[in-house]
């Protein structure tokens, strides 16, 4: 979109934002379209599921349900209706759950954000420490051990890690709870309640973080090696800057760029939740909600979650782009 189309001159930042938001909205619309189409291509609908669960029914009952849920309409009509709803910022209603979609998403968002947030922070912190350590001690035993562990963590299935952690720390040692988000009806308040929440968070956050930790560590190690070879590092060292500053400020700042890209992309994907971790730890997040919605053919809910996640991905990516130019002023927001 050019400045002419906008009709007046905007400052570069605003133009960048306007263009990105325009692109994003088109993208979100495509996502909705694709999700809507794909789920309609899957055999069976919500009424098949509900009548099947009931174990017995008759044709009249099934027709009645289809009519109640609007499933007797052709797909294009339903799509049009849905888009029209969206035009009114209405995410629709989940007939399966008997609740508005936005409310269902809202109820789960906190749990997902908490889990994703803490595991991402854990993964980044760990990766920065380990990545730097490995890069600085290139080809030493430390580097070797870190690389092997990272590869192992990268290759181990997430659900297995989760189950093993539960077996060891919950079932055997009884140090931590095996699942859920908090002890129900414990009557805890204040710091005790916070501690209870933290205890429940430890295992799922670690499980989820491990995979990303491994990935980020390898990425950061590689980019640190790259950066440490560059001239400006040699200059910094020649200036007599302490190694801590050279590595911590000059090198790391530049080495973080690829990591930021990666985290940005994965954070977007992660916002949909991690179905596996949420299942294994009975964590009441968005991932399970979406997963169940597929099986239940709860179209409004599924499209709603996809749409919502799409908006979040776009927001996060926009922030990442802005973060780039802050990390590396040579990158301009154009």
């Amino acid at each position, binding site marked *: 979109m050019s400045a002419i189309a906008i009709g007046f001159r905007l400052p570069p930042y605003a133009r960048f934002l306007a263009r990105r938001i325009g692109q994003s909205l088109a993208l979100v619309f495509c996502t909705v379209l694709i999700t809507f189409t794909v789920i309609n291509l*899957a*055999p069976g609908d919500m009424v*098949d599921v509900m009548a099947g669960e009931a174990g017995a*029914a008759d044709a009249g009952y099934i027709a*009645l349900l289809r009519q109640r849920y609007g499933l007797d309409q052709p797909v294009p009509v339903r799509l049009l209706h849905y888009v029209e709803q969206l035009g009114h910022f209405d995410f629709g209603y989940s007939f399966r759950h008997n609740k508005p979609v936005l409310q269902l998403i809202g109820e789960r968002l906190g749990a997902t954000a908490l889990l994703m947030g803490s595991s991402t922070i854990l993964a980044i912190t760990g990766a920065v420490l380990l990545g730097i350590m490995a890069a600085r001690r290139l080809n030493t035993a430390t580097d070797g051990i870190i690389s092997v562990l990272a590869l192992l963590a990268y290759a181990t299935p997430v659900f297995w890690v989760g189950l093993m952690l539960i077996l060891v720390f919950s079932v055997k040692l009884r140090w931590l709870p095996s699942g*859920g988000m908090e002890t129900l*009806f414990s009557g805890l308040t204040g710091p005790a309640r916070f501690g209870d929440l933290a205890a429940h968070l430890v295992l799922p956050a670690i499980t989820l973080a491990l995979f990303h930790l491994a990935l980020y560590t390898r990425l950061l190690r590689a980019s640190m090696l790259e950066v440490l070879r560059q001239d400006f590092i040699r200059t910094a060292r020649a200036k007599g800057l302490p190694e801590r500053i050279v590595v911590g400020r000059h090198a790391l700042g530049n080495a973080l760029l690829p990591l930021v890209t990666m985290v940005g992309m994965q954070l977007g994907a992660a916002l949909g939740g991690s179905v596996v971790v949420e299942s294994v730890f*009975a964590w009441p997040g968005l991932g399970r909600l979406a997963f169940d919605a597929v099986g239940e053919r709860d179209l409004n809910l599924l499209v709603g979650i996809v749409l919502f996640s799409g908006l979040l991905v776009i927001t996060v990516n926009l922030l990442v782009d802005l973060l780039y130019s802050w990390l590396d002023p040579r990158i301009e927001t154009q």
Partner: protein
Amino acid sequence: MLNPMNISAPWPRRRLLKAGLAFGAGAFLPRLEFARGAEAPARGGQLVVAIFPEPPYLTSALSTLGPAQVVSGKIFDGLLTYAPDLTPRPQLAESWQVGADGLSVRFALRPGVTWHDGTPFTSADVAYSLLTIWKQLHSRGRSTFANVEAVESPDPLTSIWRLSKPAPYLLSALAAVESQIVPKHLYDGTDPLTNPHNLAPVGTGPFRFAGWERGNYIVLERNPTYWDQPKPYLDRIVFRVLPDAAERANALETGEVQLLMSSGVQLSDLARFGAAKELAVERGGYAYTAGITSFEFNLDRPVFQDVRVRHAFAHAIDRDFILKNVFYGYGAIATGPIPPSLTQFYTADVPLYRFDLAKAAALLDEAGLKPDAQGTRLTVNFDPAPIGDSLQRAAEAIRDTLGRVGVKLQLRTQDFAGFVRRIYTDRAFDTILYSANAAPDPAISSQRFYWSKNFQPGVAFSNGSHYASAEADHLLETAQAESDPKERRALYVRFQQLVQTDLPTIPLIAPEGVSVADRRARDYSVTADGAYGNFAEAYLVPK
């Protein structure tokens, strides 16, 4: 509800799990040796039960999904309840009387019962529930109550039902989880399917709805004005939504959950649970919801119209192996569509098909299905219903033994919605394996799979084989309206013999209900519906 992973999917009235373990029950509780029910019940405490999948709503008058019934069964009482041997007992109805002609049933309702909001429970609630909910919106109620023409409420505590034909099975269908009475004052004039009370029910049962955090838990609390004082004993029941079978087992072992039931239990875990000293495995106790796992033919396929082929399949399935290795011995060999636990109708005097591959091969030869150069006689598709691990593993065992006589079964997988659509709407299948409810009365359960009038494309778990036999129809229809119990049994015995000869469906296993609970949890399963019951008598032995 679907189960791409290791998740037990929804099943026709398969009650899902329920688990209750006292929170924080220590890992090393001493073994409690006294007999169940021998001491005076203790008051108080919280029982945590695992459920999955999460129910869409909590009124089982509208959703017959197992977990909805588990939760709903505590909030609502029914007209009747049933002893473990399925004998009816009074609950909201103090007494009942069937007219001499079998064309009327008169219920005397219990006085002094109130809904959780304080409104008195009356015959108007019964009439409304039957005519508006069960007859119109309950998936099975539509047929169960089809013969009820009118409901009279001469006074608040009397309900008289007028029938067009005798319907002796009616009295088997009145448990809270099957025919739930909803409060007329909160439902009348609304759309029952979207009534907000479906999410926060007001019932008459021993526990009141107290909260529901989606994807996490549902909580019920003691109803202080319950009609059957001093019950209930528990202060609170928490139903935790636990999607993963391994997590359910872990939570049970750590004491975070105290009760797991039926399909929530992985049978492979039971040996481990049995060895844990703080846990008790309880077998049986679910006669009201007993089921049958069956192999079914699509009789629209010409090859299966030859009864010799169907008999050959029956001889080539090793039921003993499946019972022992897939169901870990938790169940019985099925000899027909009626499970052995339904003693008043069950007969073992039917044609039995011993596992005999030579006989199977001979029958296939006779039917003209000769092996080709590769030894293959027949290649057909095989769709096990995607509900839990057991069916998938049983399907693999069946494929192996049939493969040995040259019948190649091509296993296909799909999710639950896909299965229902493929089998019952598109009818694009050759053979299936599924489990379905076969209790509490053949007229309510088994009939729908064999009655030619229930061949209804588009309707899940209808007559999927497309079996059509005038004789079977006659037996079913006569038995349905036969008031004399002896004569009724005789008709069902003949029905079992007939369908085991025609064999449109090969019943394989009658799985046994199993619960695993903290040893401190007592009397949670005292009625024929086991842990689907109301828990009024359940209590926790103090630590």
